[in-house]
C-alpha cells in the first residue's frame, strides 16, 4: 500500500448544503484516502450523508470547507471535461431513454473523448466493445435499455462507466433494487474490476455483510464523521457495534454476521454433529434459545445414521419431529407450558 498511487485524498472536508448564510452541515472534518485498485464501501445509516459525500467527491456539489484532491490536484482546478476523464458516476437514478440501445448508452461514456459532433471512430468503437465485454453485456449490445432487467441495466451502466475510462468510479448504491442473484453478480463484477483493471471504486451500500466480505476498505459514516479502515480493523475496534444503536439487530464481532435480538427463552443442549447440528443451532437461535455447552435436562438429539427424526427429550419424555419447523414449534410449546 505504501507504494500505491493515491487516487483521492480528502482533507478536512465539510459537506452539506448552504442556502444564503445558513449552512446545513451533514459531515464535518473528514479525512480519507483512496489508493489505486481499491474497492471502498461507504457505509452509514440512512441520512448519514453517503450520497452527499459521493456527490461532493464527483463535483456535483461543492464542499462547504476543506479539500478534495483527485490524483494530487485540487478538484476545483479541474474543468468539467477534465474531471470527467478522472472520475465517473453511477447514481441511483435510472436512465429510461426510449429507443436507446446498450451500445448507444455505453458510447455516451466516450463523451469526454469525442469531438464536438460526438463521432465514434475506430479507437472509440473498440473501447466501447471492450467495456461492454468487461461488463458481460456483449450479448445485449443491440438491446434497448428499456427492455433490460434491473440487473442487466446496472451492468450496462457499469459498461458505460468503464468506457469513460476513469481511474475512479463512484457508485451510489449500485445494488439497491436488485434481486439477490444480481446483487452477488454486481459485487463480484466490481471486485474483479478493481483487481484486474486497477480501477478505484467507491460505492455506498446498505449491505454490510457483502461490504465486509468484498471491500478492501470501509468508510464508515457516523456522528457527522468518517472512520476509515479495513473491514476487519473496524470490527476489532468495535466500530460496527453501535451503528445499530436503536435497531433490533446486533453485530457479532467474532463471526462477522448480524443477528436479530429476539426474546430470550433460555438455553438448551444439542447432541449431534455436522450440518444438521449447525442448522438446528441456527433454528434455536432464531426462536430465542442459546445453545448450552452443558447437558440440560431438556435437550435435543439431532438425526444421525439411520435415525431420521429430531428428538426432544423433556423430563425423560421423548418427542419426535420430522422437520426443524416442527421442532421449533415443539420447543416453544414445551418451554411456554413449563413456565
Amino acid at each position: 500500500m505504501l507504494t500505491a498511487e493515491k487516487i483521492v485524498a480528502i482533507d478536512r472536508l465539510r459537506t452539506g448544503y448552504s442556502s444564503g448564510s445558513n449552512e446545513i452541515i451533514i459531515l464535518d472534518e473528514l479525512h480519507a484516502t483512496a489508493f489505486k485498485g481499491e474497492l471502498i464501501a461507504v457505509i452509514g445509516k440512512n441520512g448519514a450523508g453517503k450520497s452527499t459525500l459521493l456527490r461532493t467527491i464527483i463535483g456535483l456539489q461543492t464542499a462547504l470547507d476543506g479539500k478534495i484532491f483527485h490524483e494530487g490536484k485540487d478538484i476545483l482546478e479541474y474543468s468539467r471535461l477534465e474531471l470527467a476523464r478522472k472520475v465517473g458516476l453511477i447514481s441511483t437514478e435510472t436512465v429510461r431513454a426510449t429507443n436507446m440501445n446498450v451500445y448507444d448508452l455505453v458510447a455516451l461514456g466516450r463523451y469526454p473523448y469525442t469531438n464536438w459532433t460526438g463521432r465514434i471512430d475506430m479507437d472509440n468503437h473498440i473501447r466501447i466493445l471492450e467495456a461492454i465485454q468487461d461488463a458481460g453485456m456483449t450479448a445485449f449490445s443491440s438491446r434497448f435499455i428499456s427492455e433490460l432487467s434491473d440487473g442487466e441495466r446496472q451492468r450496462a451502466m457499469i459498461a458505460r462507466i468503464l468506457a469513460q475510462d476513469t481511474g475512479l468510479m463512484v457508485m451510489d448504491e449500485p445494488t439497491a433494487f436488485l434481486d439477490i442473484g444480481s446483487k452477488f453478480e454486481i459485487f463480484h463484477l466490481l471486485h474483479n474490476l478493481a483487481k484486474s483493471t486497477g480501477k478505484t471504486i467507491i460505492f455506498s451500500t446498505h449491505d454490510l455483510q457483502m461490504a465486509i466480505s468484498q471491500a478492501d476498505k470501509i468508510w464508515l459514516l457516523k456522528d457527522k464523521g468518517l472512520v476509515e479502515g479495513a473491514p476487519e480493523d473496524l470490527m476489532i475496534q468495535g466500530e460496527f457495534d453501535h451503528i445499530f444503536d436503536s435497531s433490533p439487530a446486533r453485530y457479532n464481532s467474532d463471526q462477522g454476521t448480524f443477528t436479530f435480538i429476539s426474546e430470550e427463552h433460555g438455553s438448551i443442549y444439542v447432541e449431534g454433529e455436522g450440518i444438521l447440528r449447525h442448522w438446528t443451532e441456527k433454528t434455536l437461535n432464531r426462536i430465542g434459545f442459546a445453545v448450552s455447552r452443558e447437558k440440560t435436562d431438556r435437550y435435543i438429539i439431532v438425526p444421525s445414521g439411520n435415525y431420521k427424526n429430531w428428538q426432544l427429550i423433556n423430563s425423560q419424555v421423548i418427542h419426535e419431529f420430522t422437520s426443524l419447523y416442527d421442532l421449533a414449534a415443539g420447543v416453544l410449546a414445551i418451554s411456554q407450558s413449563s413456565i
Partner: protein
Amino acid sequence: MSTRAFISQDLTLPSPGKQYLIFIGLFFLTILFFFLDLFLGSVSLNAADIWHALFSGGNGQLEIILFKFRLPKALTALLVGIGLSLSGLQMQTIFRNPLAGPDVLGITSGASLGVAFVILGFSVSISPETLQGFGNWILVISSWAGAGAIMIVILIIASRIKDIMTILILGIMLSSGISALVILMQYFSSESLLKSYVIWTMGSLGNLTSDQLMVLMISVSVGIILSLVSSKMLNALLLGENYAVSIGLNVKFARVVVFSCTSILAGSVTAFCGPIGFIGIAVPHMARILFRTSDHKILIPGTILIGGSVMLLSDIIAQLPGSEKVLPLNAVTSLIGIPIVIWVIMRNRKYSGIY
C-alpha cells in the same frame, strides 16, 4: 490500439445503411409534397404550367399564382414544419418528457404574448401584414423573448417537480394565465389593433410578405445550425442532468444553447404564422418510430425532413384541392398530431414519471 480478442464480434463500426435509405426516402417525399403543394389548390396547376411559368418570363395569372402565392406558401410550410418539429424534439429531450412541445408547455402562448405586446401595445396601427423591414425583427424578437421567458419558468417548475403529468397540467395553467393577460390587453386596445391580432391567432401560412419570409428563413436556418451543433449535448442530456455532468457536459451552457434555439424556432414561426398546434410534439415521435434510435445526430435531420413533409401535407389537405374552400390549418395539424400524442400517452402509461 488494443489487441484484445472479442467473442464473436466483428470490429466494423455500426453502419447506418438502413437509416440512409430512410433518409433518401424522406428526402424525395419532402420534394414530392413540395411540388404537390405548388400544383394543388383552388386552381390546379400541372407540370407544363409550372415549366411555362418558370421559363416564359411572362407576367400572367399563372405566374402570379405561382410566385406570389403558391411558392411563398410552400416555402413557409416547409420552414414552419421544420421549426416547430425541431423545437419539439429539443424540448422533449431537455425536459426528458415525451409530451413536451412548444404548444403543450405554453411556449407558443409565451410567443403570442410577445406578439400581443407588439401588435396591441403600439398605439400606431401595425399588424404582421403591414410590418416592414426592421419592424419584422421587432415582432420576431419580442416573440422570442416571450417564448424564452416561458421556457425558463417551465424549467424552474421542472427542476422541482419530476412528474410529467403535473408539469403538463402546470403548462396548461401557464398557457391559460397568459391567454388571460392577452385578453386583458385586447380589452384595452383599439378595434383595428384587435382585428389584426385576432386574424393573426387563427394561424396561416399564406400571409407572409417576402421580407417576413426572409426573416423566417434566416431564423429557421440559425435554429437548424444550432440544433446540429448541440446534437452531442442533447445525447448527453438523455441520461439526465447528473449523468450528463458526470460525463463532462457543461449543463448551463447546453441549456443556454438549446433554450435559445427552441425559442428562436418556435418564436419566429409563431410570430408570422400564429400558434400552430401538435406538429412540434408529434413529429419527433414519428422520427423515433421510423429510425428506432435515440441518437440526435440521426433524429435531428430525420425530424427536419418529416416536419417539413408533414407540414406540406397538412397545407395540401387544408387547401381541399379542387374546391374553393380552405380548411383552418390548425384543425388539420391537430387531426394529424393528436392520434400520435394519444399513442405516446398510452405507451408511457407504465412509467409516467420518467422519460
